[in-house]
C-alpha cells in the first residue's frame, strides 16, 4: 500500500522565510509537491499556515493544516475555522494542542533546525560589554515585544551592547540573508527573546544550536518544552522586571556557558525528525482511510449493528495499562466479535484489534477519553467507551442495540453518593462547580458517571464531544462538570442506565440487580491525593513522579 500523495500549499514557497523553508524540507525529503494554491490532483492538501484558507475556500478534500500561533480577534477566528475544517492539525508547539484537540486529531512534530548549518560558536572570549541579540521582523501587531527591548537598552546600556537581525528594532539592526544567519548568532554572547506571541520561535532554537545562552519568556511557544538547564534563562511573559532579572543573571554567568550542552537541548528538533514525523503522521492518519474507500463501495450487504460497533479504551501509565489488560480480555470474552481499540502510548497486545497511538497529555488520560469521537475508528457508527479500570462481566451488546434505536448517548447515573450535581463539590473544584451550577440554574440535576458511555455518530454527538472536550480544557480536572455543561448546552437523546451498568467496587452503595460491569475505581491511577491543579500541569506530573519514586508502578488503590 502506498502513502497518499500530498500537496503543500504555501503562497511564497520559494522565499527564504520560515514556512517556505519548512515546505521545501518536506518537498526534498518526503517528495511532496509544493504549490501556491490547492491542487486537487493530490490525495491531501496541506496548508503550511492556516491563512492559506483565504485563497482556497472552495477546497473540500482531505486537509491538513499547520498551526504556528494564534493571534487575537480576526486571525483567531480564521485559525479556529481552519482547525474545524482540517482532518489533521499539526501544531508548532505543545501549548496549542489542548485547544486544537477540541476540533479533532491534532499532533505536534519537532521543528526542523538545520544542525549542520547552525554550528557551535568558536572561541571562549567574551568582550567587556557582552553582545545581546534579538532577531526577527517587527510587525505592527506588537507581538515582538519591542517596548521590553527599549527598556532593557536603557537599563543595561553600561553593561551590554544590543544588536538585531531583521528589521524594525530600536537597536542597531542588520539584515542577514538566510545563509548568513548562523554568523549573526555566532557573534552574540546572549540571545534575548522579547516576543509576546510566537509559535516557536525558531530563533531561540537556532541560537541554542550555536551554543548561545538565551533569555526567553517561559510560557511562549516551544519554550516550555526546552530543558531546564543553566544557560536557558526564563522570565514571565511580557513582564519587564522579570526579564531584567533574567538578563542580569545571564550577563553575570556569561563566561560560564556550557555551549555543547545548550546545543544538545535542541537535538530533538532537527530536519530529520520534522520530515519523518510528517510522513508517519500521514501514514497513520490517512493511508488506511484513503485506501479503504474503494473497498467500502463494493460492499452492498447491510451491516448488522455489531458490525458497525466497537469499544474504545484509553490507558496511560502502568496502573491503567494493567487495568486495560483485564478490561480488554473481558471485552473479548463476552463480546468476541466486537473490535476493541486501545488508545495509549504503546500497544498492549492482549487482544486489542486496533492500536491508536497518542501522546500522554494529562495524568488522568482525560484528553484521549474525550477525543473518543475523533480517535475511535470512523467506520464505527456505535462506540462504547470504557474506563481502563472497568471490567465487563457480561455482554454489553445491549448498549450498541440501544444506540441503533436512535439514542445519541447512553450513560449511567452516578452512584447515590454523587447522585446530583450538588455532590460534585470537593475541596479543589469550587470555581468549576459554581460555573456548572450557574449554567444549569440548579445544583439539583442528575450527575452521570462517565466511566462507561456509548454514542452514536451524528452531527449532534460530534458537537457534544467537541463541547465536552472544550469544557474540560477550561479546568482540566475531573470530567463530570464538563460533561454536564456540554450536555446542557448541546441537548442529546440520552438513554439513562442504572448503576448495574457501572457498579463501583469502591463505594459499597447498594446496587440492585445483576451487575453487568464492575468499576474498580482508583485502580488505574498513577498518583495519590488531590492534585489541586490542572491534570496537565507540572504540579500534576510532579505528583505522578513523586508517587512512582516511592511506589514504582503500583496503583494507590493497593496502597491505601
Amino acid at each position, binding site marked *: 500500500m502506498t502513502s497518499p500523495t500530498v500537496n503543500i500549499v504555501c503562497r511564497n514557497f520559494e522565499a527564504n522565510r520560515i514556512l517556505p523553508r519548512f515546505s521545501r524540507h518536506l518537498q526534498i525529503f518526503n517528495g511532496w509537491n509544493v504549490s501556491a494554491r490547492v491542487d486537487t490532483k493530490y490525495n491531501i492538501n496541506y496548508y503550511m499556515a492556516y491563512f492559506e484558507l483565504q485563497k482556497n475556500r472552495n477546497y473540500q478534500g482531505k486537509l491538513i493544516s499547520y498551526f504556528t500561533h494564534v493571534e487575537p480577534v480576526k486571525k483567531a477566528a480564521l485559525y479556529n475555522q481552519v482547525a474545524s475544517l482540517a482532518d489533521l492539525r499539526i501544531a508548532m508547539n505543545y501549548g496549542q494542542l489542548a485547544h486544537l484537540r477540541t476540533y479533532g486529531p491534532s499532533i505536534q512534530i519537532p521543528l526542523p533546525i538545520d544542525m549542520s548549518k547552525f554550528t557551535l560558536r568558536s572561541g571562549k572570549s567574551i568582550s567587556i560589554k557582552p553582545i545581546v541579540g534579538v532577531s526577527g521582523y517587527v510587525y505592527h501587531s506588537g507581538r515582538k515585544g519591542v517596548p521590553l527591548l527599549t527598556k532593557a537598552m536603557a537599563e543595561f546600556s553600561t553593561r551590554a551592547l544590543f544588536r538585531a537581525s531583521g528589521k524594525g528594532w530600536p537597536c542597531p539592526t542588520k539584515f542577514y540573508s538566510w545563509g548568513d544567519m548562523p554568523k549573526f548568532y555566532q557573534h552574540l554572547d546572549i540571545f534575548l527573546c522579547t516576543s509576546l506571541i510566537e509559535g516557536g520561535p525558531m530563533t531561540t532554537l537556532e541560537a541554542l544550536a550555536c551554543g548561545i545562552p538565551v533569555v526567553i519568556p517561559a510560557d511562549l511557544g516551544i519554550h516550555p518544552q526546552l530543558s531546564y538547564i543553566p544557560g536557558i534563562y526564563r522570565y514571565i511573559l511580557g513582564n519587564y522586571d522579570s526579564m531584567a532579572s533574567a538578563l542580569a543573571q545571564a550577563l553575570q554567568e556569561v563566561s560560564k556557558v556550557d555551549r555543547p550542552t545548550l546545543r544538545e537541548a535542541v537535538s530533538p528538533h532537527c530536519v530529520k525528525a520534522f520530515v519523518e514525523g510528517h510522513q508517519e503522521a500521514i501514514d497513520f492518519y490517512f493511508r488506511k482511510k484513503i485506501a479503504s474507500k474503494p473497498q467500502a463501495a463494493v460492499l452492498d450487504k447491510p451491516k448488522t449493528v455489531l458490525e458497525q460497533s466497537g469499544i474504545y479504551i484509553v490507558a496511560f501509565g502502568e496502573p491503567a495499562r494493567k487495568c486495560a489488560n483485564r478490561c480488554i480480555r473481558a471485552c473479548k470474552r463476552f463480546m468476541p466479535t466486537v473490535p476493541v481499540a486501545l488508545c495509549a502510548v504503546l500497544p498492549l497486545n492482549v487482544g486489542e484489534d486496533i492500536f491508536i497511538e497518542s501522546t500522554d497529555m494529562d495524568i488522568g488520560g482525560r484528553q484521549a477519553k474525550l477525543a473518543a469521537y475523533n480517535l475511535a475508528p470512523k467506520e464505527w457508527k456505535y462506540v462504547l467507551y470504557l474506563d481502563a479500570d472497568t471490567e465487563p462481566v457480561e455482554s454489553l451488546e445491549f448498549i450498541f442495540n440501544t444506540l441503533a434505536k436512535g439514542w445519541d448517548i447512553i450513560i449511567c447515573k452516578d452512584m447515590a453518593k454523587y447522585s446530583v450535581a450538588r455532590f460534585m463539590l470537593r475541596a479543589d473544584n469550587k470555581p468549576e462547580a459554581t460555573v456548572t451550577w450557574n449554567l444549569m*440554574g440548579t445544583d439539583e440535576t442528575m450527575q452521570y458517571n462517565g466511566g462507561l458511555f456509548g454514542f452514536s455518530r451524528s452531527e449532534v454527538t460530534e458537537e457534544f464531544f467537541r463541547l465536552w472536550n472544550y469544557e474540560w480544557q477550561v479546568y482540566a480536572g475531573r470530567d463530570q462538570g464538563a460533561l454536564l455543561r456540554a450536555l446542557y448546552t448541546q441537548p442529546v437523546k440520552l438513554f439513562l442506565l442504572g448503576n448495574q451498568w457501572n457498579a463501583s467496587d469502591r463505594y459499597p452503595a447498594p446496587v440492585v*440487580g445483576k451487575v453487568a460491569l464492575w468499576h474498580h475505581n482508583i485502580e488505574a491511577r498513577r498518583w495519590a491525593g488531590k492534585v489541586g491543579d490542572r491534570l496537565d500541569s507540572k504540579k500534576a506530573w510532579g505528583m505522578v513522579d513523586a508517587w512512582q519514586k516511592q511506589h514504582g508502578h503500583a496503583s494507590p488503590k493497593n496502597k491505601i
Partner: protein
Amino acid sequence: MTLTKGAVWIAFGNPSLREAMKAIQEYQAILPSATVAPVALICEAMTPLRNVQHVIREDISWGARQTKVMLDLITPYDYTLYMDADTRVKSSAILRGFKMLEAGWDLIMAPSHRQGSDVFGHIDQEERMYTFSRLSNKQAIQFQAGVMWFSNSTQVASLFDAWREEWNIFKRYDQAALARAIDRVPIKIWVLGSDWNGRRGTIVDHLFGRAII
C-alpha cells in the same frame, strides 16, 4: 416568535380538585409578584380560582390518566409545566425548568424514588411483568411523571402518541406506560434531582396520594 409558557394541573373528582386548588394558590403565591406565570386547570367545571384558565372536559378514566396522556394535545401552552394535584411548589426556582426547555431539551423530569428491586413497585403485577418483558433495559430507570416540563416539539408529540398507545393497553397507571413509550421513542430528557419532585422536595414537595383521599 414568542412561545407561551404556563403551568397545568388536572383535577377530576373532589379530592383531586381540592388539592389542585391548593397547589395552584401556593404556586401563584410563591412566585414574585411581577412574574407572568399563566396557569391552566383541566377539570369538569369552572372553579372560583382567579387568574386561571379553565379547560373543561370529561374524564372517567382511573385517576384521570386519560387526560394526562393527552396533555400535549390539551395544554394551552407551547412550553408546559405539568404538576400533579398533590404537589406543592416551594420555590420560584420552579420557573427554571422553562429555561431548560429553551436550551433545547424536550422533556424534563426527575426519577421516581422507586428504583432497583422496587421499580414499578406500585403498579399491578400484570402490567409490571408486561413492562419488564417489553423494556430493552431489564434494569430500567423509573421516571416520576407527577412533575414534568415538555415542549411542543415533534419529538414530544411522538412520545405522547406512544404513551397513549401504551396506556391504552391497561388503562391504569401512567408511569410504566411512559417507560415503555420512552423505550420506543428516543427523546431529549434532562433529568433533575428529587428536590424538584419528591417528598419534602425543596422546590416541589410531592404529597403522594393526597389527591385520592
